[in-house]
């Protein structure tokens, strides 16, 4: 599904190198987790894959189902099946959440040559999916993420994911700012989308999210590289011992 090879990335404005040769291969249906200390480059990796401005790829490649992501505009990556759940979902005053969702869904359908959803059909689908995530009608009417609590923002991200039905989902610290109940709700939303044709990359600091969203593979990232890869037990090791031992091991 996602093949990242020797990815090197620096900040466009400064000479600061952030990713120094990331290799990652995620097969269809798999759930991978990336853990790592602050500043290791986890969020940068997610932004570079989604196509945010401000980064320069100096070496390497990233392919989604054989298509090179790095040459595409962000909206083309989305249409190709990539989805990034933001660590800090953006507030957009003046744009209704429902308008936003419908514009996004129909833009993607259009770019895939499918017919746009009618207002009625769209409403039916969005209401059903929102109900599962305990998102009420009021949240759908309000401007995108404006006045939403931390938990509401994250649930709104998952709702977008459920509506857009991407193939490759990247969750950037979706657990940050969530209480136990909200984390459970969000995880259930993610698990409901798990499917043989859909892959996940879960970026997190804490093992607790991985109790709910069980990964197949766990990677440890440090200083812009993946330094260790293993099974779910690797996450437990980090939880118990921190990163110090792992970092010492590679040095």
């Amino acid at each position: 599904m996602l093949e990242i090879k020797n990815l090197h990335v620096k900040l466009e404005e400064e000479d600061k190198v952030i990713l120094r040769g990331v290799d990652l291969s995620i097969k269809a249906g798999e759930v991978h987790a990336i853990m790592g200390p602050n500043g290791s480059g986890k969020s940068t990796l997610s932004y570079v894959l989604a196509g945010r401005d401000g980064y320069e790829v100096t070496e390497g490649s990233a392919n989604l189902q054989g298509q090179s992501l790095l040459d595409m505009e962000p909206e083309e990556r989305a249409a190709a099946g990539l989805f990034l759940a933001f660590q800090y979902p953006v507030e957009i005053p003046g744009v209704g959440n429902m308008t936003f969702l419908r514009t996004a869904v129909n833009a993607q359908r259009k770019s895939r040559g499918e017919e746009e959803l009618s207002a009625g059909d769209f409403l039916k689908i969005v209401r059903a999916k929102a109900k599962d995530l305990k998102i009420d009608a009021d949240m759908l009417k309000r401007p995108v993420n404006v006045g939403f609590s931390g938990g509401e923002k994250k649930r709104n991200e998952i709702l977008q994911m459920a509506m857009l039905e991407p193939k490759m989902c990247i969750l950037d610290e979706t657990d940050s700012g969530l209480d136990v109940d909200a984390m459970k709700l969000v995880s259930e939303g993610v698990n409901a989308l798990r499917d043989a044709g859909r892959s996940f990359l879960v970026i997190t600091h804490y093992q607790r999210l991985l109790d709910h969203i069980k990964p197949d593979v766990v990677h440890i990232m440090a200083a812009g590289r993946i330094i260790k890869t293993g099974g779910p037990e690797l996450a437990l090791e980090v939880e118990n011992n921190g990163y110090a031992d792992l970092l010492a091991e590679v040095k």
Partner: protein
Amino acid sequence: MAVLAAKANALTARLEGMSLPKDGWSAPARKEALARLTEMGLPSKRDEYWRYTDPSTLTASQAAKAAVFHAGDEPPVFDGVDRVKLVFVDGVFDPSQSDDPVLAGVEITHLSDAGRADIHWARDLYGVLEARGQNPVPRALAALNTAFSTQGLLIRATAKAARPISLIYIHDSEGSDAMLHHCIKVESGAELTVLENGPAAARINQVMEVDLADGARFHHIRAQGRDHERRAVTHIFARVGAGALFKSFTLTANGQMTRNEAVIELIGDDGQAHIAGAALGDGVFHHDDTIFITHAGERCESRQVFKKVLKNGAVGVFQGKILVKQGAQKTDGYQISQSLLLDDDSQFLAKPELEIYADDVKCSHGSTSGAIDDTALFYLQSRGVPKSTAQSLLVLAFLAEAITEIEDEAIGDDIRSRLDGWLNRHER
């Protein structure tokens, strides 16, 4: 003295060949207006009040030509609204294109008939609010209008009008130079909506005097013409009685020169005055909103909400003032002017002013200039929304606060969908 002489000379040149209409009840008002005008002379860019907008094309003795804009197959603004249509072509009323001016609770007559009929209520209004609005800054072009305008409507509402009155201004000749003067009186407890759309002429000078009796309600929604080369100076002079409501919204897209002035006086207690504008400017576009709201009564509320989207060197100007007179306690005044600059070439010039002589008052004002929020743009794109669509969505969101000032939902939606169409067509 050189400045005064220049003003007087400019006026002499402007008035050459013009003669004051002498018949009927409006004659004394015209004579007084000419006297005011002679004292003021015509403004130039050296006047503080015209510091950000060069009035020379508006004061010139000859109007520059302006090509007529064809909107293609796009239906005109307010097309879906059930209304009484009154059409002016190049500033002259055209009965053949107009509806019968029959609306229960509303009397509609023409300024051009003023010589024949003595319309008492209009006599007490014509030029009266304009003259009140000449203090503290002279508005010479409005006095010029009062003195010489022979076209316009005299509208008096005595009950709640079932339909809006829609003034349609067609620009037909590329050399047209027009003046329109409307007087509107809404009696106690009555309610009236006036719609205006179209460029009117290559150059238009317009005055609208609005007198709202106690408890009257008045809604004004205007879409100025999109002819790229047209020039307009418009003035609203409004007097708002106790418990009365005044609401005005203007949409401006294109036009080489637009100066929209509004002078609103809240003379009774518990009155409300809201004035808002949304403007889209591209290239040689100069758009100026100059607003003066006076609070003279207690517990009145006023709002000024102006948003401008500018690109390719377009210039936006906002001069807005709230004056709270002594004794106007519990005043609630709000003023916001914002611009969205889509490139580095465009300019927004703002002069917000508050002058307060009462001690128990709530007044806030703010003015900002900014670019499109890149983070929001990326967020939308990351959901699959193409960049151009995402940009229009954010531009509409920026304008939203001004558009929500329109009380009628259907009319607000019409304005919104129109903007949406223009923005999307523009981007492609």
